[in-house]
């Protein structure tokens, strides 16, 4: 690099080849400089070669070209491939006892008595606990704590915990399980979620004065935004569908397991494969009635989470209680069947979806009604109820949004959070609805979408602030790469192609337990000592998604170090600062941001030290590979270790703490915080399928999967997440289903009958990464863990329609279901042989040209908005003639938010809307 002037020359000292002023180990060795920085990873804005079609980013100057953006192996990968990774059941402490859980064989019953005497007589039985040992309730959300460690009074589903026993070995524990005699009084159970809306003699839970009538409604939501009354007059095409979604389970390969150990000082260490160790920490303190500081939650390796390990669980409480009673470590490992009893999978749902389009091909209304089946406990359900509505208000601009949602308790294993939390089912309904609208309007469904997208840096109808949007690019890329125009509505019978989009939060804006304006969402600590390695303390839970790797990458990048100099300590609550855990796709966004801010402090100190040694101009210093040097004259500079040791003089190890807080966002109506996020991810998939018209068997052949993750910090992991999401979504759309028999009994609690796709069912997946460079994301990144799941379901449904011309409204699309639909279609059309069916065809209407022109125009608008930093605000509603710079409810009262149903609505409510027919007890004046 050419020298400019001489101001940097020979100021302080210059490093000379082989002539270091002092030789420290690792200060440069025989090499003069370290590896040259890879210019391809340095952004254009910093003089590098990395193109930035989405503009520059506030972290650009921190990029040292080390690891960000390179496909990177997981930092804990070697533990996993050598068998040395310790998962829950691999924690073996000396003197351990094995515990088993006694579970209810009844759907709903009162526990009258528990007789443990016979079990106690069995040699080898050490401790037994029942509900009497843990009176306090817990639950993941502070507003809905409705769980006990073991049944107090009632059991609420088959498999609900009644008691637990710890013994010297597993055989004894299982034998003791048999010997514990429980007397039940069976109550009438409910299994159909629709019954949950009715008054009931014994509601499954009693919320006192907050209880809604005598029903089993746990949560109800009513929301109207925009011109809902105008829908009827504006619409020229309407879609209506009643969906039935089966419940699905995460089916992580590792069954839940836990080890509890009270050490001699009276502190509890709980070893557990948890996604959210901090909430367990709180729940343990509640249940065991000890202060939080007396507990250390140790997260083991997690053998797959997907939301299934994100609640504080009763078995975790049981192991701690038994360990306390026995004075010995206690290990509990689930059988596969027990995983289904604890469940927390996706809610079985009944969703009524109404979509309306006007004569300009705009979406003039979405009306959704979602009844979701929560099973026996609340879990995350409060949030799920909102998410079923609010998470499909984007990426499209809409004129009116109506949502009624209700979650009911039934006597099933509890539903909870699962990858794509609350958004998956209603997204599937919206996207298939759009396909139908396009069909009715005789336009291309991709063009319909392209002409109705919100621009970057805008706000949705619900008031969510949306920053970067790569939706348009996602759609354009999949359209092109799949050769959409040659295939759509043009393929022979039995072959089809379909589109689906997605929109998901990148970290929930509201921490569950505290005020986001006061406390951070994530905190990261760094420590660097003489050896130069960086120890990162973080509470973010590595569950296989690569969170440790992303944090290590972020720190390495900012400090210009190779990845092997970073070590992550993220296991124990004793050493890790509080982090909310791995859910709501928050880790990369929040935790990497916290890590960057911590690393920036260290970087500052290193730069100061460099200035002190070299006297160089601080502004001109950059960090390369283990070296800090003047950009215009690389010979002026010091090695990382020299700078570090200088900085350590008089004080020892460098430490820093960085934190991330969400900016203030959103509106103020009831429920406004649900679905708020500092950024959102977008995705569009095209799926190509083959349907055997004679058997109804569907096979997905190929998927083009474009996901806007802001910036792929680790492209290898992002692709892994996209492909893995496809796998899970394909399972839900084609084969996975928790099947309940006529008497409400779960019929398939095992991996043989609960069918997750094997390698042979998997199509070829082409992951396409779109990088929209989010202004607030770490180096521009957003989430990639959950959003990629959403589009695959509707893409497959739409492709099936393209192939055989029938729309399913019940998932999974098993061969028998699809065949019935095909046969019905043949019958109504008077066709004898299924092979004579006609698959749908498309002749464009005039509207097609209107849409194409609008899409073109919007594309320019979007480009301008994303590149230009002082852009005007843009609110949903502008497409319908409102002033984009003012929130719609301020310009027109028809757009005001309404969260209470009117009497008119209540006269004829939709299904979930019926929940509003009941009055909360406190308002009834009878309690």
């Amino acid at each position, binding site marked *: 690099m050419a020298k400019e002037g001489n101001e940097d020359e020979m100021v302080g000292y210059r490093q000379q080849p082989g002539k270091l002023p002092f030789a420290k180990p690792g200060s440069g060795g025989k090499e003069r*400089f370290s590896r040259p920085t890879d210019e391809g990873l340095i952004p254009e804005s910093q003089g590098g070669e990395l193109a930035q079609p989405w503009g520059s980013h506030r972290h650009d100057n921190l990029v040292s070209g080390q690891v960000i953006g390179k496909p990177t192996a997981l930092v804990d990968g070697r533990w*996993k491939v050598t068998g*040395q990774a310790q998962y829950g059941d691999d924690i073996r402490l000396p003197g351990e006892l094995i515990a088993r859980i006694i579970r209810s064989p009844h759907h709903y019953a009162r526990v009258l008595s528990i007789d443990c005497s016979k079990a106690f007589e069995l040699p080898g039985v050490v401790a037994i606990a029942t509900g009497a040992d843990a009176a306090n309730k817990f639950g993941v959300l502070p507003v809905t704590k409705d769980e006990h460690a073991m049944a107090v009074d009632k059991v609420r589903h088959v498999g609900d915990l009644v008691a637990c026993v710890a013994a010297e070995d597993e055989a004894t524990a299982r034998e003791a399980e048999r010997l514990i005699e429980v007397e039940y009084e069976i109550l009438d159970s409910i299994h159909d979620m629709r019954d949950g809306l009715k008054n009931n003699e014994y509601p499954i839970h009693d919320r006192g004065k907050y209880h809604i009538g005598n029903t089993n409604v746990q949560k109800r939501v009513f929301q109207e935004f925009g011109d809902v009354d105008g829908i009827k007059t504006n619409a020229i095409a309407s879609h209506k569908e009643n969906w039935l979604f089966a419940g699905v389970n995460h089916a992580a*390969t*590792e069954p839940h397991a836990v080890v509890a150990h009270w050490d001699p000082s009276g502190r509890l260490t709980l070893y557990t494969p948890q996604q959210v160790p901090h909430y367990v920490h709180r729940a343990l303190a509640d249940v065991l009635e000890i202060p939080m500081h007396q507990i250390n939650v140790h997260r083991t390796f997690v053998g797959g989470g*997907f939301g299934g390990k994100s609640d504080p669980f009763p078995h975790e409480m049981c192991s701690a209680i038994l360990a306390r009673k026995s004075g010995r470590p206690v290990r509990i490992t689930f059988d596969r*069947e027990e995983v289904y009893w604890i469940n927390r999978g996706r809610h079985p749902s009944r969703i009524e979806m109404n979509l309306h389009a006007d004569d300009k091909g705009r979406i003039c209304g979405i009306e959704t009604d979602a009844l979701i089946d929560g099973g026996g406990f609340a879990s995350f359900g409060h949030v799920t109820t909102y998410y079923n509505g609010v998470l499909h208000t984007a990426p499209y601009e809409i004129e009116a949004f109506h949502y009624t949602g209700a979650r009911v308790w039934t006597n099933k294993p509890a539903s909870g959070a699962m990858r794509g939390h609350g958004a998956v089912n209603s997204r599937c309904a919206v996207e298939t609805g759009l396909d139908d609208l396009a069909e009715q309007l005789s336009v291309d469904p991709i063009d319909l979408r392209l002409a109705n997208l919100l621009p970057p840096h805008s706000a949705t109808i619900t008031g969510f602030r949306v920053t970067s949007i790569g939706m348009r690019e996602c759609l354009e890329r999949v359209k092109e790469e799949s050769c959409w125009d040659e295939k759509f509505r043009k393929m022979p019978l039995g072959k089809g192609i379909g589109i689906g989009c997605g929109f998901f939060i990148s970290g929930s804006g509201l921490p569950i337990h505290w005020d986001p304006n006061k406390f951070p969402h994530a905190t990261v600590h760094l420590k660097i000592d003489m050896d130069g390695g960086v120890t990162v303390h973080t509470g973010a839970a590595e*569950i296989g998604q690569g969170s440790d790797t992303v944090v290590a990458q972020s720190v390495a990048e900012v400090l210009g170090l190779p990845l092997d100099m970073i070590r992550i300590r993220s296991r124990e609550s004793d050493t890790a600062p509080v982090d909310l855990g791995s859910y709501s796709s928050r880790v990369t966004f929040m935790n990497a941001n916290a890590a960057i801010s911590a690393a920036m402090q260290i970087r500052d100190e290193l730069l100061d030290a460099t200035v002190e040694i070299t006297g160089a101009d601080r502004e001109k210093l950059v960090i390369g590979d283990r070296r800090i040097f003047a950009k215009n004259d690389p010979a002026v500079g010091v090695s990382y270790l020299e700078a570090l040791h200088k900085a350590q003089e008089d004080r020892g190890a460098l430490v820093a703490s960085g934190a991330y807080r969400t900016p203030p966002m959103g509106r103020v109506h009831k429920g406004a915080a649900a679905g708020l996020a500092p950024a959102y991810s977008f995705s569009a998939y095209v799926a190509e399928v083959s349907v055997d018209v004679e058997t109804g068997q569907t096979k997905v052949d190929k998927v083009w999967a474009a996901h806007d993750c802001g910036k792929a910090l680790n492209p290898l992991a992002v692709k892994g997440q996209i492909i893995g999401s496809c796998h899970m979504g394909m399972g839900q759309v084609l084969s996975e289903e928790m099947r309940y028999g006529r008497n409400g009994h779960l019929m398939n609690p095992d991996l043989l009958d609960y069918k997750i796709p094997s390698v042979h069912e998997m199509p070829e997946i082409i992951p396409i990464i779109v990088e929209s460079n989010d202004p607030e994301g770490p180096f521009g990144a957003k989430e990639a863990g959950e959003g990629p799941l959403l589009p695959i379901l509707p893409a497959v449904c739409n492709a099936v329609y393209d192939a055989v011309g029938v729309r399913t409204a019940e998932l999974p699309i098993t061969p028998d279901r699809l065949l019935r639909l095909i046969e019905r279609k043949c019958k109504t059309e008077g066709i004898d042989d299924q092979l004579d069916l006609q698959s749908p065809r498309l002749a464009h209407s005039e509207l097609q040209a209107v849409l194409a022109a609008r899409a073109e125009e919007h594309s320019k608008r979007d480009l301008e908005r994303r590149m230009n930093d002082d852009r005007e605000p843009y609110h949903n509603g502008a497409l319908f003639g409102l002033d984009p710079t003012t929130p719609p409810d301020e310009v027109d009262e028809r757009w005001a938010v309404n969260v209470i149903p009117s009497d008119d609505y209540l006269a004829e409510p939709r299904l979930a809307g019926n929940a509003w027919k009941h009055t909360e007890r406190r308002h009834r004046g009878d309690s």
Partner: protein
Amino acid sequence: MVQHRLPMLPSAGDVPWVASVNGVEKQLNIENNAILLDVLRDQAGSLGTKRGCDMGTCGCCSVLVNGEPRLSCLTLAAEAEDCEITTVEGLAEGHHLHPIQAMFTECGGSQCGFCTPGFLVVTSALLEENPSPSDEEIKCAIEGNLCRCTGYQQIVDSVRAASEILTSGESVADSTSPKSDPHPGFSRE
């Protein structure tokens, strides 16, 4: 409720059992109805062998018995008596990972890693038999293993990459060997 593991049959007490686990001869006393997976995990110290379902559906518990992949949860320990058993811990040579191990980390074949030991032993047996399998052959070899994280695509990529290394005769680096230069790299000029 169904119990998948019914170890309750009367056992004739401890019976001696000998087998070679990862090249080391193990002499253990086991129950006559002991399942190989339990013996490996609880007595032979192979916690790398995972239990995902205990009923032959997930493949996490796969091990090699005389070089053949077996589901250890469906195998009586007695059936493997006097056999050579290889678990995931037996694949590496010291710190030289087996290429299949190295590639599972490099190519994204392992996310949460719980299924990984099963996939590794099964595919290492495949590569032993057929050092350059086609994608279809790789898929057939792993059809009995479930993975919930990766969607299998990067697993197939990993096996393909390992096969390339194996056929080229290269070996994988040892992460513990001394580094001649604490700052490996090259000079700028």
